[in-house]
């Protein structure tokens, strides 16, 4: 049993709450516990914020497509967005938090949060213009995905 839903947003931080709500509602159908869903929602927020800030430089003319695929024991969130640069979060090393606090650093915690909470992160450069960032959370045990659960299929557009 698997299902997938998508939304398309303009690349603006004002849409983060919409993205969080969308992912939370999609994840609820996966049978994941609330604490795990909270971790996934935060990771998605961090990923989306990074794309808006670093790949799109807050230019709202850009768009981000977010697809959530749920299966019995896994949730996969894919961000498709235009950018000439490929950035792979796996290449970023985690900050030394003792040094971080000692030097009153600001920022740079989004990727450590994603790495901590998600099972796998994949960055793909599909063609010269389109990048995909994929976050996967796999459960250790099969979830209680309702056999008859159906989700909305299609694309909702927020601008």
């Amino acid at each position, binding site marked *: 049993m698997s299902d997938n839903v998508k939304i398309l947003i303009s690349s603006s*931080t004002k849409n983060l709450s919409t993205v969080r709500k969308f992912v939370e509602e999609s994840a609820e159908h996966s049978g994941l516990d609330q604490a795990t869903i909270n971790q996934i929602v935060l990771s998605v927020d961090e990923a989306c914020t990074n794309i808006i800030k670093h790949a799109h430089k807050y230019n709202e003319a850009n768009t981000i497509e977010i697809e959530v695929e749920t299966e019995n024991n896994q949730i996969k969130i894919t961000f498709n967005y235009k950018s000439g640069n490929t950035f792979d979060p796996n290449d970023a090393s985690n900050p030394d938090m003792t040094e971080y606090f000692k030097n009153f650093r600001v920022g740079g915690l989004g990727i450590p949060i994603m790495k901590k909470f998600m099972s796998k992160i994949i960055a793909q450069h599909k063609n010269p213009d389109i990048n995909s960032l994929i976050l996967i959370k796999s459960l250790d045990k099969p979830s209680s995905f309702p056999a008859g659960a159906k989700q909305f299929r299609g694309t909702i557009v927020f601008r």
Partner: protein
Amino acid sequence: MEEFSITKKSSGDIEILNLEGFLDAHTSVELEKELESLLASNKFKIIVNFKKLTYISSAGLGVFMAYIENTRDNKGDIKLCEMSEKIFNIFDMLGFPILFEIYNEENTAVEKFSNN
């Protein structure tokens, strides 16, 4: 419901900010402005009450990192209180209790300032 709001009150020379809603990369700008305004008014003893805050991302955490040094250089502090377990877990997972004082009760945070 509003996405995010801040209500202020004073207790002697201590400023208390009550946060409500969610603190993310969009709404954290408002908190930045509020803290900047307090520091510009030479108010360095600040308590942030999280009781009605339902969500925080790293952008929200970054706001506290950006202003903590300035308050302490001026014999003040930013003390945090009344976080839900969900929000405390984010602060705790990243090690924020190393740098920040986090209290269950707002009164305790007020007393800590008074004792200094």
